[in-house]
């Protein structure tokens, strides 16, 4: 059965492997371009010493490093979904399409073993490929954006906590790929058409990512809350894209820290009580309706505005928890798919 699963799905596995290798090659190329880019000046960055600031936006737009990094990031976002749908969609639905399930299910093995073997034989290489790419991405991001972020990050705006970068970095891409794969195979078992399975996988995957980004991730780890508006200094740091955090300064008062005006990690802008004061909502409402000077009324009640956010120090906690959620969802989907294959007619 292992032989059959590999033989049947080897083309799509090779396509996914090819995509990952191509993306990896592009990353290496960017690192090489960055290292050979003209030096503008040498600056001192605290903690890093002397850093050569390089010109990354020279030449035609297509060859600008900022542009290339943005494109690579976009492809990294797409890859788990594409790979998962490409391998998961046809896994069961492709057999229904060709009616080859009738051939396989009348040989000597049970349907459960048939699907379980396919899931493992195709899913395991997918996890390996995406895991290798995740390690590569991690190393790459520090090469390109890390130690030199003072110079490069100023142009790139890259920050590991941004909603567009967080899902392309760390370990979550592996969990996303596994989720998309399970989603594709189960939707295929339910819909029985490869095309529909792939389309439905992409749609559901997108919705899941949206829900995760806007509703789940903000509360997946304890937030920090900054009273008042971020200072100019803080804003400069956040726009400079602090993709590194300093474990010695987890709240990020001094070193680059992840707080951004446009990122997912900024949410819940609103009223919070100062420590020790009662629930702010009633006070705010009362002030808004009755006080001539609303702000003075709120200040007098010791309530202040501020910004809640996930600091960069929570990066790995968020990565692990989000991955766990996706893997759990994948397991549930696989159970549903196995049930459908066991119960339903050929």
């Amino acid at each position, binding site marked *: *059965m292992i*032989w*059959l699963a590999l*033989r*049947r799905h080897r*083309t799509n596995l090779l396509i996914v492997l090819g995509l990952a290798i191509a993306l990896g090659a592009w990353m290496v190329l960017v690192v090489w371009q960055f290292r050979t880019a003209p030096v503008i000046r040498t600056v001192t960055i605290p903690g890093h010493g002397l850093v050569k600031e390089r010109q990354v936006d020279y030449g035609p737009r297509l060859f600008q490093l900022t542009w290339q990094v943005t494109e690579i990031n976009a492809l990294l976002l797409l890859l788990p979904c594409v790979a998962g749908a490409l391998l998961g969609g046809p896994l069961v639905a492709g057999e229904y399409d*060709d*009616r*080859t*399930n*009738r*051939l*396989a*299910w*009348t*040989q*000597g*093995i*049970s*349907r*459960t073993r048939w699907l379980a073997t396919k899931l493992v034989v195709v899913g395991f290489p997918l996890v390996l490929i995406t895991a290798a790419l995740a390690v590569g991405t991690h190393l790459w991001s520090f090469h390109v954006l890390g130690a030199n972020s003072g110079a490069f990050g100023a142009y790139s705006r890259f920050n590991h906590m941004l909603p567009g970068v967080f899902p392309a970095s760390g370990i979550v891409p592996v969990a996303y790929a596994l989720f998309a794969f399970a989603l594709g195979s189960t939707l295929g078992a339910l819909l029985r058409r490869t095309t529909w399975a792939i389309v439905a996988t992409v749609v559901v995957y997108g919705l899941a990512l949206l829900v995760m980004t806007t509703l789940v991730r903000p509360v997946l780890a304890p937030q920090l809350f900054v009273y008042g508006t971020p200072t100019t200094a803080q804003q400069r740091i956040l726009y400079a894209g602090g993709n590194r955090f300093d474990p010695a300064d987890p709240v990020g008062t001094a070193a680059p820290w992840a707080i951004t005006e446009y990122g997912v990690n900024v949410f819940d802008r609103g009223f919070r009580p100062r420590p020790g004061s009662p629930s702010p909502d009633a006070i705010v409402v009362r002030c808004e309706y009755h006080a001539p000077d609303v702000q003075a009324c709120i200040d007098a009640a010791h309530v202040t505005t501020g910004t809640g956010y996930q600091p960069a120090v929570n990066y790995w906690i968020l990565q692990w928890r989000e991955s766990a959620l996706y893997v759990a969802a994948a397991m549930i989907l696989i159970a549903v798919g196995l049930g459908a294959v*066991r*119960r339903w*007619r*050929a």
Partner: protein
Amino acid sequence: MTDALETIGLGRRYRSTWGLRDCSLTVREGSVTGLVGPNGAGKSTLLRLAAGLSRPTTGSVRVFGEEVNPNGTAHLARIGYFDQLRPLYDSFRVEEMLTFGRKLNATWDDEAARGWLAEFDIPLDRRVGKLSLGQQAQVALAVCMGKRPDLLLLDEPVAALDPLARRQLLQTLLGTVAERGTTVFLSSHIVSELEPVCDDLIILSAARVQTSGSIEGLLAGHRVLVGPRTEAAPDGVDVVSSSSTSRQTTLLVRGTAPEPGAGWEVAEPGLEEIVLAYLANPGAGVGTDVERDSRPEGGT
């Protein structure tokens, strides 16, 4: 003696329509049993249920006395199933289809499968998708043969073949199964093809079994009556079908010695005539059995 296949009150519903209804039949071990019926009669549904590809809505299906469990493996080792659509992995080479059979079956007779392919000159290195429909059917049958099944379930095995290849296939099939005592249950809508190879016949129409029995029994148990044109059939005969011209009426009746009275001629019908009579009248004889002979000698 257990039957190779036994169904009791077997039914399968697809949403609002029944694909097969209240089907009770047996296929004797060692027999070659034909399943005839028009398109959409439920032949494929019955064979899929027997192969465990579909779950019964009502009733049960047993293979060699064991209930078929669609997710189990007990029945799988004993059956060889040939689907009407001849599904194969189009991108595989013929050789790889044999590897497929070997890897997915605990017992595999490579020689039997290769022998079958050699018999029909199927090139082993050709991709399955590039073969003709007839050749694909042979590859699918070769996989069935390699399983060394006790019960072959063949859904329209000769449909894609030209008349010469049909005869060759049926002859080879009979030769092979006679050696091993394999039970064969095959469907077709061409009666003339089944007659020379089958011991028993089951007539299925409009999702129900109309009649079943040995071919000899069917032939011996029906008579054709030809007489003057009349609206009412003579008393005491069990009419399966009737047709009239302006001058005379022809009846196909059940029973060996009808006594229709004066003016009627009694003749022996052909098998095709009997089958067509039943198919033309889906209500006739539902659920009736013609007595069967004792177990046939191998290789008949």
